[in-house]
């Protein structure tokens, strides 16, 4: 607080949440960092510039997504070592940006390995403030969970251009005051209760929340943590981590008495959780959060551990399969032995040419880089017709066949995904996963009934296959349908249009050159399903009297878990 505000300290104008997040992070770097959701653009750039401006003394570095381990962590600088004839070490970007800001570009594409290094640096140091730029689309593309869990804030709406940010001196003053502010047991109790209400699982969230509330109090110039600080911290830290809707109907008497140290007597343990909430619970939950939660409830966002970058096959990962001459660029790794072997025959010649004698002279043309063979992970995408007609025909059998295939996938450690189409939509019941117990649950819960939006089903499955192929996996599409399309791409009923749309979608599918299997689940062969398969360049399997085991064998023959895909 400035010395001019003598008596009636005017309340500083409230900032927008994204500015609060930046300010709190600048005050307490122990909050780890922030995840910025949104595509690149002036608003995001400005936010990053102003955020880093809050600590003008701190440097800002940017980390590219495919960074190599030696640039990240430091190591021998090969080029300098060869030039100097002695070992020259480079420090990694993590150590170099210690105490400053590290902008992680395309965080949703980080490999789990890189994310693990970043997470370790947050846990143990050296620690910069992380600004993770997340440009992911949809719940399937998120930065690795190990990193996200260690960043306090998520910002998805940026501040208006003309909003006034706190000054660096205010931030510095708040930073100094931080350690004088106590977080009382009551405050912790409040924060933890809120977290439990929202179904926040990781205890890190509460620890962050506590730090954020303290930083918020410091920013206000306050000596203690007040109601507004708690509300702000909960909104910034807990709300984005919420997995469930709290029961916001305020209990009649709980509002009056604040929770005190009655924990020890054991009585409070017996009360149901809802009774422990005070009114603030409802107040700190932003309205939009409630809306978003209602929409998402039941399909908890699945955070997948693995990002996708670094999957360029050949040079970076997998089993080593020898070396070839090449240059060190990007992720290529030097094969020292082969490089030295290549250099060996030339030593005499080079020694004669060299001005100063050296033990060994290696030139760039000697460089050999390692080659790796990466086994592309396969993913089998099942698109199941769960419409009413299918349900009567073969839905149970189709389920049985998929179960068998899942067991095969487990042996191969392949991934599976499950899409069901019925009514007017196609739903991704199971995002790509190798956790098969979950696949089984999703499948047994698959309901049947309604009309058949075949075109939408094909398009949805195709879109998923393309996304997965882009991330370096080998997709196999398996459609199970009886072909009774009666809902068009536009969601309107009508057999003729639905059939046309389905064939158009099939044509689009053929153009992607993917291995596809179409299983006809109708009691008798359906000409339309065969035509559909033909249009897709797919293998057609009519299985009117099939048992699950036969269907499973057919899928394998088409390049499923045991067969090999020729493409």
């Amino acid at each position, binding site marked *: 607080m400035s010395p001019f505000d003598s008596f009636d300290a005017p309340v500083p104008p409230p900032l927008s949440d994204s500015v609060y997040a930046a300010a709190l992070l600048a005050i307490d770097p122990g909050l780890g960092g922030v995840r910025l959701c949104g595509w690149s653009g002036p608003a995001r750039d400005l936010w990053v510039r102003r955020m880093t401006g809050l600590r003008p003394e701190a440097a800002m570095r940017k980390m590219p997504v495919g960074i190599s*381990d030696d640039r990240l962590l430091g190591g*021998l600088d*090969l080029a300098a*070592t060869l030039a100097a*004839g*002695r*070992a020259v070490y480079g420090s990694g970007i993590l150590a170099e940006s210690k105490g400053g800001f590290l902008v992680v570009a395309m965080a949703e594409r980080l490999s*789990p*390995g890189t*994310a*693990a290094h970043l997470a*370790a640096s947050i846990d*143990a*140091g050296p620690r910069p403030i992380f600004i993770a730029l997340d440009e992911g689309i949809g719940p399937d593309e998120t930065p690795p*969970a190990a990193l996200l*869990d260690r960043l306090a804030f998520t910002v998805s709406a940026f501040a208006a251009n003309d909003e006034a940010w706190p000054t660096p001196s205010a931030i510095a003053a708040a930073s100094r005051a931080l350690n004088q502010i106590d*977080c009382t*047991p009551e405050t*912790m*109790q409040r*924060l*933890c*209760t809120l977290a*439990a209400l929202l179904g926040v*699982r*990781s*205890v*890190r*969230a*509460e*620890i962050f929340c*506590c*730090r954020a509330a303290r930083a918020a109090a410091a920013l206000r110039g306050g000596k203690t943590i007040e109601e507004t600080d708690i509300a702000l911290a909960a909104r910034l830290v807990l709300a984005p981590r919420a997995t469930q809707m709290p029961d916001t109907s305020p209990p009649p008497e709980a509002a009056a008495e604040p929770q005190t140290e009655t*924990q020890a007597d054991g009585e409070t*343990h017996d009360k149901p*959780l809802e009774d*422990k909430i005070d009114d603030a619970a409802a107040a700190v939950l932003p309205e939009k959060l409630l809306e978003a939660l209602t929409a998402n409830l039941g399909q908890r966002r*699945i*955070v*997948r*551990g*693995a990002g996708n970058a670094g999957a360029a096959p050949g040079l970076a990962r*997998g089993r080593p399969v020898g070396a070839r001459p090449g240059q060190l660029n990007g992720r290529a*790794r030097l094969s*020292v*032995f082969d490089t*030295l072997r290549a250099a060996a025959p030339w030593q005499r010649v080079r020694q004669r040419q060299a001005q100063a004698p050296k*033990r*060994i002279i290696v030139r760039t043309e000697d460089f050999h880089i390692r080659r790796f063979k990466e086994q592309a992970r396969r993913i089998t995408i099942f698109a199941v017709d769960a419409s009413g007609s299918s349900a009567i025909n073969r839905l149970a059998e189709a389920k049985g066949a998929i*179960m068998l295939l899942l*067991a095969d996938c*487990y042996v191969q*450690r392949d991934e599976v995904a499950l899409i069901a189409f019925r009514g007017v939509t196609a739903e991704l019941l199971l995002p790509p*996963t*190798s*956790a*098969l*117990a*979950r696949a089984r*649950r999703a499948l047994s819960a698959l309901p049947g009934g309604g009309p058949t939006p075949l075109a939408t089903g094909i398009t949805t499955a195709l879109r998923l296959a393309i996304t997965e192929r882009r991330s370096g996996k080998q997709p196999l599409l398996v459609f199970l349908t009886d072909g009774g399309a009666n809902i068009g791409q536009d969601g309107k009923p009508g057999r003729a249009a639905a059939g046309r749309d389905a064939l158009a979608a099939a044509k689009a599918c053929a153009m992607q050159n993917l291995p596809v299997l179409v299983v006809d689940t109708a009691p008798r062969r359906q000409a339309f399903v065969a035509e559909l398969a033909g249009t897709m360049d797919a293998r057609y399997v009519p299985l009117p009297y099939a048992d699950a085991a036969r269907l499973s064998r057919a899928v394998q023959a088409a390049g499923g878990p045991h067969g090999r895909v020729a493409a």
Partner: protein
Amino acid sequence: MKPVFPFTAIVGQDEMRDALVIAAIEPRLSGVLIFGDRGTGKSTAVRALAALLPDMAAVKGCAYACDPADEAALCDACRTASARIAHRVPVPVVDLPLGATEDRVVGALNLERALADGAKVFEPGLLARAHRGFLYIDEVNLLEDHIVDLLLDVAASGENLVEREGMSLRHPARFVLIGSGNPEEGELRPQLLDRFGLCVDVQTPTEIAARVEVVRRRDAFDRDAAKFCESYAQAEAELRGRILAARTRLPDVTVADEILGRAAEICMALGTDGLRGELTLLRAARAWAAYQGEDTVTMAHLRHMTEPALRHRLRRDPLDDSLAGTRVARAVAEVFAA
């Protein structure tokens, strides 16, 4: 050195803490697998364990920290050395990060020496550093396959065989493997599961009081780590003493035939593969008895260790998602009731 959050200051998670302590008492259990959500204190517990354990004697200048008292397990350099000077070193807890390359794990040609003076010198990797200590792999279920292959081989044989880049050598690598992960994010290969002696499931504390206590202690630690550690110094020293006493007692802990029979019975009831389940169960029960300060294994000890020793050995049907823990609990109830 940065102070480490004390082991005894971890709130709750008794099963995980006990399993780690038992692995420290009986290294032949060969490891602990910790399954659970993020933010349940898995990493904190492993790092705290390292700080808790007493220093060990090692040959000075040895890259593998050989035990001067154990003649049979010396590395080649130590065996041929004319004199071995001992000194005390902390028990190593080595992190194996997910993205680690084979070079870093196994060891490789020393680049500096190779490039600067053309010498062929071996640069020991993470496996060498973890010898006689702990190798910690966070998110073990996301580890790349070829690294898993390496680990399986080394963990089984207790030595690291290097045949690469024109080098051919072997060195001892005996360590306690500690893995953590979230099973929802990927499965673990059965062979790797089998390498872990014990398996514990950790849950995020759901009681508000426990969560408040976690936050309170973390907050106190973050604000003044030295003072916080000081207040736990006595508890740490006591636990260290108990671990040391248990290690001394362990060789003399006896197991009655009746207990052996019961262990076999429960393994049969659960249909675990091979004999490893039984062996592990008995070892764990002995270590637990030693930790409790007793000289004979009782039924209670056996029963206590049954779940952590067996729950990961019966996931044979990947599609049966009834919790393995429940199945073990049911079998325990039946066998012990008999």
